């Protein structure tokens, strides 16, 4: 089953910029995952013409193997088109007035798909004004409430005090996104090809914003302890993904922000292989190293 990740948030928050950034970064990699991005409007998608292989009807194929597909008010139809084409994952950019949870329901309704998480983009510059808006205030609060993880844009346009105030007001885990660049590991769900444990146990993202912990084991984990472990994932861990073999079976783990899910997996490699992505406060943040070390110890006790 293909994981389906939802990227929501109000108009102007920066969803399309994030999609453009993702498509551009995937185009530069050789071993990129084949993903399909579903958008409401091709007009705003900004792809270098050299990177487009074919443009036909609702879909635009890229040289990287990824495709961009226009939803045209028929998300289900778009999912049907993609289902036969063995994409590793699907990322949906919702309309600005959509309730992301309703879109995420497709992941559990449409045959062939599974949940990849709900990310909601928050416009740091306009969030206060939007929240009080007579017409969209309730919608924007609901979008944030339905998110698993928040992606906060335009923070560079605020001063330190404003950033701190905003951060304190956010009701759930959040990741800073500058100039539309959001790490693909944060945006995308896990698939059997997308976890690269060869990078070593911990790796720094090139922006120094994240630390990554990889974990592999052939042991069969204890299911009860695993659930407790997931409930207590430390605050800086914004995404965890991979596959698990435990006392009750084999699972896909999808942990995005405040929510984790285990879904029964049939065709996954043996054992357990997980990646944890945690936010570092500063490039030289020492507390995050301690947090990850603690996380690794806890994993060995499962």
């Amino acid at each position, binding site marked *: 089953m293909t994981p389906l990740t939802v990227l929501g948030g109000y108009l102007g928050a920066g969803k399309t910029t994030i999609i453009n950034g993702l498509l551009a970064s995937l185009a530069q990699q050789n071993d990129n995952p084949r993903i399909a991005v579903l958008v409401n409007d091709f007009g705003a998608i900004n792809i270098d013409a050299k990177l487009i292989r074919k443009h036909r009807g609702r879909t635009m194929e890229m040289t990287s193997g990824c495709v961009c597909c226009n939803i045209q008010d028929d*998300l*289900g139809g778009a999912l049907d088109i993609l289902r036969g084409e063995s994409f590793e994952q699907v990322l949906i950019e919702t309309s600005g*007035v959509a309730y992301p949870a309703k879109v995420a*329901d497709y992941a559990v309704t449409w045959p062939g798909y599974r949940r990849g998480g709900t990310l909601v983009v928050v416009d740091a510059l306009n969030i206060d004004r939007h929240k009080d808006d007579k017409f969209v205030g309730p919608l924007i609060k609901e979008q944030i409430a339905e998110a698993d993880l928040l992606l906060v844009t335009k923070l560079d346009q605020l001063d330190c005090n404003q950033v701190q105030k905003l951060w304190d007001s956010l009701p759930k885990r959040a990741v800073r996104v500058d100039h539309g660049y959001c790490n693909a590991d944060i945006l995308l769900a896990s698939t059997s090809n997308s976890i690269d444990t060869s990078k070593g146990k911990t790796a720094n993202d090139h922006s120094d914003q994240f630390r990554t912990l990889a974990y592999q084991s052939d042991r069969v984990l204890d299911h009860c302890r695993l659930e407790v472990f997931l409930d207590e994932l430390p605050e800086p861990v914004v995404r965890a993904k991979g596959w698990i073999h435990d006392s009750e079976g084999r699972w896909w783990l999808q942990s995005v922000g405040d929510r984790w899910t285990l879904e029964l997996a049939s065709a996954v490699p043996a054992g357990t292989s997980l990646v944890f992505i945690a936010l570092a406060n500063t490039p030289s943040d020492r507390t995050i190293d301690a947090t990850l070390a603690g996380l690794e110890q806890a994993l060995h006790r499962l």
Partner: protein
Amino acid sequence: MPKPVLTVYPARSVITMNPSLPRAEAVAVRGDRIVEVGTLTSMKPWLDAHEHKVDERFADDVILPGFIDPHLHPTMAAILLPMHFVTAMEWKLPWGTVSPSTTPEAFLNRVTEIEASTQDPEEPIFVWGYHQLWHGTMSRPLLNKINATRPIIVWHRSFHELYLNDGALQWLQITEAQAGNRKQIDYPNGHFFESGLGYAVNRLNPHILAPEKYAEGLERLKQVVHFGGHTTIADMATGLFNFDTEWLMLKQVIERDDTPFRVELVPDATRLRAAKGSNEEVLAFAKSLPAQNTHRLRFSDHIKLFADGAFFSQLAQLQEPGYIDGHHGEWITPPEILEDAMRTYWNAGFKIHLHVTGDLGVELGLDLLEKLQWERPRFNHGFTFEHFGFSTPEQIERIAKLGANVSANVYYLYELGDAYARRGIGYERASQMARLGACLANGITTALHSDFTMAPAEPLNSAWVAVNRINSQGIVMCAEERITAAQALAAITIDAARVIGRSDEIGSIRAGKKADFTILREDPLLADPMHIKDIPIVATVFEGRPFPIEPARS
């Protein structure tokens, strides 16, 4: 070439809707036009000057201006009408009146009868009208008991969920491996809802949207429109599904000599923008459309936009205190995007028809209209609030001051008044939906529409609800917002013509207008208000040609 002979129709009474001559005894017609209204004596100068004949066929009846439904969706109707109606409410259709099925047993018995009378064992049966409030639980096993092999598809009244039997699942190739164990698809019960509905609908679409089905549906729509006594309807969202297909089919099926009505076409700018890319391109396209007009099908300078969600789905956007259960409505168009679109058409001089269902939707429409009036004032701008479910008294005053019109689906009150009081927004606001008395008191041009199939395409039925404000439980809701029978007749004739920008040609009976009439057996202004919906419609006259109406079989 000799001028055609004059035809004089004497009547028991002619209700003209022309305030300068409200009642008459006869109307004289030449070709497709009225030449004189009055008495046989007063029209003598015309009769002395021209060859004429007196046609007595309506001598015992009452002649009204041809009814106008200013908001109806031929395409949606074409999809629905080939289906079997099994409903909790009565539906009068040309091929028979659907008597209400108000219990689970009655519903299943009716489906069983339909199944038994369908000869071809492989022909799928589409049923529309199931509602749990009346019909209890529905399920695949219940439908299988009727017939497990023939496909049976049962649509909910709201169109937001459906049930399939074994035969239908097999026909649509929906297997347990795909659809078992998915959320919003209850496979054991064959129940598809919310996003799960889309899965079934995508597989049904090739069958229900097939050209021959669509043409059959439009043929049926023609009968329904005539049967309701209309001589004009407005397609208030041309392009709702696919502009080119709809336009082609309308030309093929409606633009024919046997069609006793005309259609005003109002392009769906929201859909068109998705296809064309920008408001400016849609505007250019909309401006190009009148060049393609035919005799019966006419585009002009009207355009359709959407604010908040569907009334039947409780997706209307509400001001405080919202819905009882705390859920929120939806915006079909984001407010900023709507503002850009409205400004484009406003500045181009178009008449904007805005779909609004909740009072927050009305508020958005009013705020934007006020802004545009400030930026670029317009008079007689024809901005119309469409549907008009919930509103506040203060909004009515603003609508009047900003010079906008209202086109209301008052049937909401009849079908949903009781249900929305109990399980929606509470009695106070539910009872005041379709606040029409206040609209008329404030001098707002107010029309009634069916948005068929959201309400029956029967103008007399809409008028009946507006005059009586009675709900499906037989209870009067908010008598203060009742309108008079004369106001209700204006709302389905001259005011409906104003709303669609055609009051110079149709909507009343006076010299010079099109000879469009609806002929009633009884006088609706003298009848018991509770009887208005049951007044028999004898015939219509479209552009001078009589088209009799056969009474429905029951």
